[in-house]
């Protein structure tokens, strides 16, 4: 895997990491904290098909500013400013994972004319008391791999300090990303997105790990229900919450297949 273009940009006072690699249709991605740590097989597979621009929210991937953002509206504006700084334009694909998915869905709801195509990978943002899932913020380091992934070793490898990095600094880097996610989602991820999803006009693909323990796969249909026929849903077999680590190629293939279908219909 060759290294992506990698820069830390200042977006209205927040330092945000942007990774860019590949050519073809532009796909802008708001990753979850874990997927903002390292360039993985999933990133590489996406970059083989698209011009992938991973835009890491404040606090993720060594960025900062998360501790100055207090309201959900300000998080949405920070994401919109970050996407603009990365060059997102009408017609580009917007994708978001987990906490990034919740924010991506909100960007699509708040600026429906701007976002025409949306991909959500196990997005947070809704919460059903009847189906709460497991508490993603109450887990030990030891138990986290099995909570987030069906292939715990893939998670452990992604979270492990790279060779040569000082363990305490890497741990701070990891914790800061998790803190940013908690700042947005605490205590269980309900950003009141349900009341805004009706505004989304984008054709939306919703992907979910069939074995997701954090946000149950049934939430895929809950999202689709709010999107009123503008969404298609696919479950990824053998994948947990972080399907990008469990089944990277299959997840990218599902995205590509949806776009191919879209083009065929066009």
């Amino acid at each position, binding site marked *: 895997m060759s290294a992506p273009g990698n820069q830390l940009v200042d977006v209205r006072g927040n330092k945000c990491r942007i990774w860019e690699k590949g050519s073809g249709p532009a796909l802008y991605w708001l990753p979850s904290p874990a997927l903002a740590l390292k360039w993985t097989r999933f990133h590489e597979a996406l970059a083989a098909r698209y011009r992938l621009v991973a835009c890491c929210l404040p606090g993720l991937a060594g960025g900062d500013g998360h501790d100055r953002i207090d309201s959900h509206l300000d998080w949405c504006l920070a994401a919109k400013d970050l996407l603009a700084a990365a060059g997102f334009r009408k017609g580009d694909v917007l994708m978001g994972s987990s906490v990034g998915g919740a924010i991506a869905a909100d960007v699509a709801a708040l600026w429906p004319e701007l976002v025409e195509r949306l991909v959500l990978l196990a997005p947070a943002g809704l919460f059903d008391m009847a189906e709460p899932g497991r508490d993603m913020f109450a887990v*030990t380091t030891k138990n986290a791999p099995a909570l987030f992934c069906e292939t715990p070793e893939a998670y452990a490898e992604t979270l492990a300090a790279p060779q040569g990095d000082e363990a*305490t600094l890497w741990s*701070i880097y990891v*914790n*800061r990303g998790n*803190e940013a996610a*908690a*700042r947005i989602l*605490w*205590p269980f991820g309900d950003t009141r997105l349900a009341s805004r999803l009706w505004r989304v006009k984008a054709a939306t693909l919703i992907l979910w790990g069939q074995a997701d323990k954090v946000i149950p796969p049934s939430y895929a249909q809950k999202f689709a229900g709010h999107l009123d026929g503008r969404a298609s849903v696919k479950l990824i077999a053998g994948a947990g919450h972080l399907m990008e680590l469990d089944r990277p190629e299959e997840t990218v293939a599902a995205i590509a297949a949806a776009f191919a279908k879209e083009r065929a219909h066009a």
Partner: protein
Amino acid sequence: MPYPDFPPDFKKKHPSVWVDIDPKLFDPVRAHELYNEYLDELEFAAECGFDAICVNEHHANGYGLMPSPNLMAATLARRTSDAAICVLGSSIALYNPPVRIAEEFAMVDCISGGRLIAGFPVGTPMDACYAYGTNPSMLRQRYAEAHEIIRAAWSQKEVFSFNGRFNQLRYVNAWPRPVQQPHPPVWIPGGGSVETWQWCGVQDYVYCYVSYYGYVSAAATMQGYWNEMQRQGKDRNPFRAGFLQFVGVAETREEAVKLYREPAEYFYTRSLHVDPRFATPPGYVTEATQRMKMKSQVKIAADRSQLFGSLQEEMEGILKEGYVVIGSPDEVADQLRRIAKEFNVGNLLLLLQFGNMDKQTTMYNTEMFAKRVMPQLADLFENEWEHKWWPKPLPKAEQTLPRKVAAA
């Protein structure tokens, strides 16, 4: 104020004593008895001549039955006359608006005639973040703002507006206000966070290291605190610092081991059985503290629970690691003098009731300490240093005592 009736297999059958503790284990009729016994014990300590009696705040917790320490402080204020009332403390970040704490503390200070020590903890992860839902990433920011409101509410001479990040109050006007002016002494309980040391120095507050694990493991924390005081150019007045220690006194060490074994083992196996998944919500431990490689008390407890569970569960290990100081009055006095001098600590916070210790044993321990240990510690620092962080009550002639109630 622990719940003392957990079964021996509690640790095996229940994941945690805190946050998601089984509600079915709580018996309200038993709690009626317990609350009255625990209040009796605190009142007895005041009668025995302790300088202060202390209460604290926990939520969804089987070892601390005081969600509202201020309720306890209010009743203790009425039933005692000389001892300071130390609320260590009220978790100021959790209340909306924080003015509530300014008001309640002022009430206790007025009722007691100026005997309140006001404690402002940041709050444990289990209490603040999991049981009360406060975002761990915002907890310290909320804490700092709540503190600003409370101090302003106590000191401003006019009604004022407060426009903060988390609180918008058009009218702040605390009625009542504390007897002690400009405010009651403020003590901060902490578990080894760098920011808490810095905060105590900047605000000139007392730092209390509230450790479950005794003096052996506390050296690094207390050294870190005093290094920070030195960095800020503060003096080494030992009354700037407090330290919590479990203590058991009897005529001989053998008798003490026999008497306090069960309560100590109960505490470390059942009262402190915290699920480690609640130890470190994201953002709770600040980056400065992570850089210092310091850990919160709860994280230490959780780590030990996972790694060294067998060591801490038996009396021999508990004593070896210094979790509990135990022995004859002279032995206990010697150990506490050594701890106080080594850590340069002027305020010893003593846990004389722990685990499932019954009322009779607690009162024995309390009386033994007051009569036989306390006199040996009285001259430790007082000739050299002024205690600037102690309550200044009204003169006796100005104090109103509760009317004696005739037996019904």
